[in-house]
């Protein structure tokens, strides 16, 4: 995993907004994750068209009051976690 990797959610996953929980949810067979706001914003960019560094850039623009280093850490932690669960690939 490096700055140029493109995280891509696997086809079995669906990223949806759930109105009852007012949150984005990531669904796959028999399982799901209710995401907090920033995780939802990160995963919206995991369709294979954005590199890790461009995701960090986009999030920094979206959350101007949060330090870039913290955002970077957040993004990397989430991507690593979902990768180890077999929910996304890193091209």
């Amino acid at each position: 995993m490096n700055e140029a990797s493109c995280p891509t959610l696997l086809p079995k996953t669906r990223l949806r907004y759930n109105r009852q929980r007012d949150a984005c949810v990531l669904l796959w067979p028999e399982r799901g994750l209710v995401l907090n706001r920033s995780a939802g914003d990160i995963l919206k960019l995991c369709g294979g068209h954005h590199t890790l560094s461009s995701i960090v850039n986009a999030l920094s623009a979206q959350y101007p009051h949060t330090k870039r280093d913290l955002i970077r850490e957040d993004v990397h932690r989430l991507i690593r976690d979902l990768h180890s669960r077999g929910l996304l690939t890193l091209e």
Partner: protein
Amino acid sequence: MLERPYTLTAELTYRCPLHCAYCSNPVSYDDRPALDTEHWCRLFAEAEAIGVMQVNLTGGEPLLRSDLERLIGHAHRLGLYTNLITSGVPLSRRRLARLRASGLDAVQLSLQSTDQVLADRIAGVVAHQKKLAVARWTHALRIPMTANIVLHRDNIEQIHDIIALAEALHAERLELANTQYLGWAFVNRHALLPTHAQLEQAKLIAQAARERLRGRMEILFVTPDYYGGVPRACMDGWGRRHLVVSPDGLVLPCHLAHTLPGLTFERAGARPLLDIWEQSEGFNRFRGEAWMPDTCRSCAYRTVDFGGCRCQAFHVTGHLEAVDPVCRWSPDHHLIQTARHAAEQRTERVPLWRRDLQMVP
């Protein structure tokens, strides 16, 4: 506060062209008419409105319903994740393409074995080759697939080949589902229960494969109940996350809850689904900890297994509130040990009982 349900398991019919000797469906049931299209659609909408995000379309064999396309389309438009759980047998490639076009998100295909003769013997009909074709169509149509195989004494030693087959079929997930001894599987328990050595060996192979295939194929090894020592968290706890609706519309916390005596469940549509979820007598009977026997109430593990499986407790011990007998601290645990002991000792072949009540040698 009571959580809202996450998934709805819609049992569209109990009918099925297969006769799997391990089938966990009820051995007998009142053959009341199944819900029609309108009722299922209304139920999906109600379920979505109270927070359900996924619908499992299962049975019996859900493909026997000619309105499956409409049901999937409706669930899809509601934003529900749709998962078709099927034997694959009554399917054509054209119909699968139609189901996909209606919004089907994923297919879970059950297989019996890697060996055609054994597979068809377990299923009670000739089905194996057809299933392999269905798996190929699923891949060709780019539908994410889970391969599900119920493990028992006669196929568990094939686990290596089973994993290889799932890989070759491009499954994204493989569920190695150790038999749950309920329904027909309870009737056939003596024939199906593996030995401890068989299980340990299988577990090692599954673990190694899980590491090797990480990121390519997700492998789930469902805990083998009779050898676990503590029970599974059946349904993630009674009435905590899952809704199951039987073919005739009973709203249940698990697919066998209506086989327990003395519990009252309500029919979908009789009153708002949220009221049924929150208030129905059957749902509340085993929620929380008040119902638990002292052994569980004083046990730290109760927040992990929620007191185990009620259906198993009842069908093995005859008592609804008993400690799940697979638990090593259950006063009835000897019943499980006896079954295990018999599995270790037996050498002769045991006949299998099936839905049509014929013995198959």
